[in-house]
């Protein structure tokens, strides 16, 4: 048996650790490569036009991604519009208003939402939220805001609005927990300085907590957006899965993730499979970019803080 001295032993360990770490880094690149390769037939066939083409008809071999990109963006944007203010307020409530021991419990409860599997959200959405949207929310919106064009058309309970509502519930924990960690970076003396100037709690929060956290809050929102863009199951169960672009938020639609979940196992023609992979690649890149964007804001922020 070869005897190694301890220096060589350590070198072996060091390289082993290094190689495995490099493998994990490589895995991420490999995922991108594999997706790209699988999407290649569709990329060569459809080109960049894929993104702007409205027709998705696997039977006729027509593949356009626009309805899905539209569906993904519109549901995620509505979800973020609803979730962002609420999450910021909740983060403020937890970090500024509650005593320490109660705030622990509330923040744990909020983060529990993130642990609920998305299939359960979907199930709840089908049996509870969609009847609620159909029978209560949609008639209410139509009655009072009928002049807004997005509230036109009938509601069947399943559609953009329902999916967006569930998404907004799902991303609140992401946004609020990042916001909370940003608020916790703010030094106590800054708040006290604001109080010393005679400000009320609201003014203190505005001056000393919110305005220095703008970039942190932005990154929290973008992280939440990233989560919403990639969410699959709950959306698939609630959006209605029809590749159309309509003005009304009651109308059914489809997202990139939902069409992949629905059609991937049934896809027969190679071009269909490859087009779905093309969609996955686009989805991957969009979430990738939004996460990098959010990380960079955080980085710049932590430099200042």
């Amino acid at each position, binding site marked *: 048996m070869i005897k190694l001295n301890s220096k060589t032993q350590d070198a072996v360990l060091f390289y082993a650790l290094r190689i495995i770490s490099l493998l994990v880094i490589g895995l991420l690149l490999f995922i991108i490569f594999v997706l790209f390769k699988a999407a290649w037939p569709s990329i060569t066939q459809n080109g960049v036009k894929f993104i702007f083409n409205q027709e998705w008809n696997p039977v006729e071999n027509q593949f356009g991604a626009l309805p899905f990109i539209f569906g993904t963006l519109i549901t995620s944007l509505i979800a973020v519009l609803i979730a962002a203010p609420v999450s910021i307020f909740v983060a403020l409530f937890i970090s500024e208003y509650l005593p320490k021991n109660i705030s622990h419990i509330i923040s744990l409860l909020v983060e529990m939402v993130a*642990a609920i599997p998305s*299939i359960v959200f979907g199930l709840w959405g*089908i*049996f509870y939220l969609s009847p609620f949207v159909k029978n209560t929310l949609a008639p209410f919106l139509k009655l009072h805001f009928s002049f807004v064009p997005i509230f036109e058309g009938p509601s069947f309970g399943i559609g953009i609005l329902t999916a967006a509502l569930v998404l907004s519930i799902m991303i*609140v924990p992401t946004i609020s927990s990042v916001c909370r960690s940003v608020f916790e970076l703010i030094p106590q003396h800054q708040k006290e300085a604001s109080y010393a100037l005679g400000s009320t*709690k*609201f003014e203190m929060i505005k001056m000393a907590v919110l305005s220095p956290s703008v970039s942190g809050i932005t990154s929290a929102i973008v992280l939440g957006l990233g989560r919403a863009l990639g969410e699959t199951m709950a959306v698939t169960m609630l959006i209605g899965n029809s590749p159309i672009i309509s003005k009304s938020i009651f109308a059914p639609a489809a997202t990139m993730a939902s069409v992949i979940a629905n059609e991937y196992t049934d896809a027969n023609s190679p071009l269909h499979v490859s087009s779905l992979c093309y969609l996955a690649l686009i989805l991957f890149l969009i979430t990738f970019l939004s996460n990098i964007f959010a990380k960079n804001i955080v980085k710049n922020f932590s430099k200042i803080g």
Partner: protein
Amino acid sequence: MKVTFNYRLVRSIKNQLFTFVIVLSAAVVLIPLLMIIQFVFREGASSLNLSFFTELPKPVGELGGGMLHAILGTTYIVLLGVLIAVPIGVTCGIYLSEFSKSKISKTLKVTVDLMSGIPSIVIGIFAYLMVVVPLKSFSALAGGVALSIIMLPIIIKTSEEILKLVPNHLREAGLALGLPRWKVIFFIILKGSIANLLTGIILAVSRAAGETAPLLFTAFGNMYLSFNIKEPMATLPVQIYTYAISPFKDWQRQAWAGAFVLMVLILSMNLFARYFLSRIKDKKGY
């Protein structure tokens, strides 16, 4: 004088309004959570019975039956994922905590962050292309691979955090005794943190066990008991999905029962891991 008075009043009203809005939004966030929990418990617990845990699905049209195959399948595939992800994940965690200043460490950190942001459906496609296509069949293995990629970033992150809690003087004490670095890592740092590392793994399991999207076209699902790694295997989330979108009342009832079981499992694991991890951090581990 009057103007100042009014101004003060306006400020105080604004302040109170703000407090009101903040309390209201906290309620708005907590209400759906409570509603979902209440709904799943009410519908789920009432549809739950012993045969849910002990029987296989009955053919369409017959009442009754259970999800034994899916419960075992989920356990099987999650364990498979753990087997793949834990060795790699803990190793990377060691690298990040012990050699944090190297360039690879920094790249790895960014990679881990980006990896946890990959949509799970994309991971499903990746596992499909890597495992299902070459083996020419949906398989439990493919499901395990998909879940392992979902668990990996969580395991790496928690193990890094946990190992970093080991105080430096322990490392120095080991090195001062003349131990080589690898012995310090394995017999002092890792050995002392095993229970804590397990907590991180439980957190990752609680995340992976609820995933549906990556299993749709990897483990795929079936209606009978199977322990063959190369064959499709039922899982609880996919079974819930199949039943939830079916038109049969009895299947929908079982979907609720499944959701109830899944949620109790996942939330209890998640709560346990969180509680334990926060205690470790408060005590600084030692």
